[in-house]
């Protein structure tokens, strides 16, 4: 007699669970699934922003055109370069700051808050601020470098294609290193103190402690932080758009897609670009999840 009763209870619980989940699922469908599905659908049409009703199915034509467009590949390369370089720098700097903040210092709370300020400023505002500071004629950065005697003529940071991408990377590093530091600091504070006490008893050099104790133990938190930032960096739009506009030399995939969608009103083609951007980010996520699964199963196999 216990069987059916239990299953009735299970059924009731399942029903309740669905009931509680329903509002969230509806909200998700409305704000995520529907727009995403619509974008994917538009990617297969010749929709135009000035007359969306007249969209007709064109099959893979948009993707064909996109994959043969050198400007698209250039924006892919720009995006990957930007994401890999900026996230690498942010990880190293973030780790250094996290280690420094992890030491017991007076006024540590205040310091942690202060470090977060760049992260709290909206990107549009901070990018515009940097655009002025990087200006070749009245920018404060050039003024400073000239004063220090490092250069004798202002450098046009955002105008020269060679330095423009580095200017964007610098602004991004300035902005998101605090976020990285905070994630890593949280990871550091979870580490068991026993390992450090044991290392102290054994008289291990602090540098060796970092490489053999801190880093391996911190690895899971570090990986999460890196993948978070990487997924975010692949979508880069605002900093690039404010600093250099639609310039091809620094155009990211998002800037490319926006130009097609809005400036050229080509919703079909722009949607195809957005879809490929989505797939690229999804690919990175899958790689990360696979790596994480292999990592955790190896850890379990270890005696």
């Amino acid at each position: 007699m216990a069987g059916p009763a239990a299953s009735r209870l299970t059924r009731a619980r399942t029903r309740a669970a669905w009931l509680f989940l329903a509002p969230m699922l509806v909200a998700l469908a409305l704000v995520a699934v529907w727009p995403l599905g619509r974008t994917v659908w538009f990617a297969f049409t010749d929709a135009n922003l000035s007359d969306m009703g007249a969209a007709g199915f064109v099959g893979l034509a948009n993707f064909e055109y996109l994959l043969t467009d050198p400007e698209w590949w250039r924006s892919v390369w720009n995006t990957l370069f930007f994401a890999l370089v900026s996230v690498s720098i942010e990880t190293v700097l973030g780790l250094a700051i996290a280690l420094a903040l992890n030491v017991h210092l007076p006024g540590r709370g205040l310091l942690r808050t202060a470090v977060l300020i760049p992260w709290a400023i909206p990107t549009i505002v901070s990018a515009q601020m940097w655009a002025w500071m990087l200006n070749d004629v009245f920018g404060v950065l050039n003024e400073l470098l000239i004063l220090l005697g490092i250069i004798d003529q202002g450098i046009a940071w955002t105008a020269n294609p060679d330095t423009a991408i580095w200017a964007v990377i610098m602004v991004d590093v300035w902005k998101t290193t605090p976020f990285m530091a905070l994630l890593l600091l949280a990871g550091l504070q979870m580490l068991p103190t026993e390992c450090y006490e044991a290392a102290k008893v054994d008289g291990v050099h602090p540098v060796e402690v970092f490489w053999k104790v801190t880093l391996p133990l911190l690895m899971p938190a570090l990986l999460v932080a890196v993948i978070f930032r990487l997924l975010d960096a692949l979508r880069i739009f605002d900093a690039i758009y404010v600093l250099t506009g639609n310039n091809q030399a620094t155009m990211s995939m998002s800037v490319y897609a926006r130009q097609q969608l809005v400036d050229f009103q080509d919703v079909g083609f722009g949607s195809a670009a957005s879809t490929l951007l989505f797939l690229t980010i999804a690919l990175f996520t899958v790689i990360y999840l696979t790596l994480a699964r292999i990592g955790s199963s190896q850890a379990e196999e270890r005696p």
Partner: protein
Amino acid sequence: MPKLVTFAALAALMVGASAQAATISISCGSVGAELEFCRTGAEAWAKQTGNEVEIVSTPNSATERLALYQQLLAAGSGDVDVFQIDVVWPGLLGSHFLDLSGEFSQEEVSAHFPAIIENNTIEGALVAMPWFTDAGLLYYRKDLLEKYGLQPPTTWEELFASAKQVQDGERAAGNDKMWGYVYQAKAYEGLTCNALEWIDSFGGGQIVDADGKITVANPQAAAALTWAASTVGQISPEGVLNYQEEEARGVFQAGNAVFMRNWPYAWGLGQAKDSPIQDKIGVAALPKGGEGGKTTGTLGGWQLAVSKYSDSPAEAIDLVRFLTSSTEQKRRAIEGAYNPTIPALYQDTDVLEAAPFMGDLYETFTNAVARPARVTGAKYNQVSAEFYNATHQVLSGRAEAGAALDALADRLDRLSRGGRW
């Protein structure tokens, strides 16, 4: 009888309501003093008619302003009733605007330059009324040229030599921020205007000719861009590659440049009381490309259009009528040096006294070179983007002019499906 009274009362109520309730929002540009002039003009209309106006300010960059308009209009939004649109946009946005040909009398329409009226007429519909016209001009420092015994240059080569001489002289005299020549070379619509002037002045055509044939890959055009690229780092700061109108004006008006290419609006601001270079500015037509070249200037200018989605079209049209009228255009010409679109005003003594260059350069304004917006239609934006990106690559030393123009021609050919557009 009571019926009639009720009817009359109702009619009076309705008239009263429509005369009082309208709030018209107008989107104005914000380059230089544009916004201020738009506000004072629109508010004068509001006061006179008892309506209210709301001024919507838009981004400085024409490219971004267009993007904003496209989003607003594509959504069928009635938030903005009157749009200030660029001379190259009627083809792109025309389907969202009311046909004004029935609203304005033949007399009112024919008072404006016929070329602009034709430009604003899309498939028989007059989608916008001309508000002010523009052409690229050469601004120079009268005092500095006099000091070095120079005349305003008539060819680009001369400009280069004069700019270099004054720049080097002034730097030696202590102003190490001095530059010879500033213009607009950020990768945006403004660079298309600048580059078209260089190419046209060398006799290199207008990118795409009136029949839709892509003509941009020719030796004169390559020579023009090669000359332009030679200015960067020599007589123009490298930052010019990221300059729009206001950045160039900033450098020139601070007294740090000998020559500047800009639109007429820079005159009013440069001659203002608080300007460090007041009464030291001269204006000339842009130089020729070599002895065989010609003087030219890209046709710019702004129109006023009424949105199809406006809730009060009658009042919106009335505002456009007020702002584009001879009286208001005269005020704007005198106080802000905005070029009228009404030929008769170029003979007005008050206008000529305030902005003498309007009389001297009348030919430049009437013969300005048009961007290929009509022939390329809805694809104009892509054409312009391809063109300014190719030019930007040449200016920043990333590509050689001839090769860049050949590649550009191939891309335009692909875009236009073989010149059919």
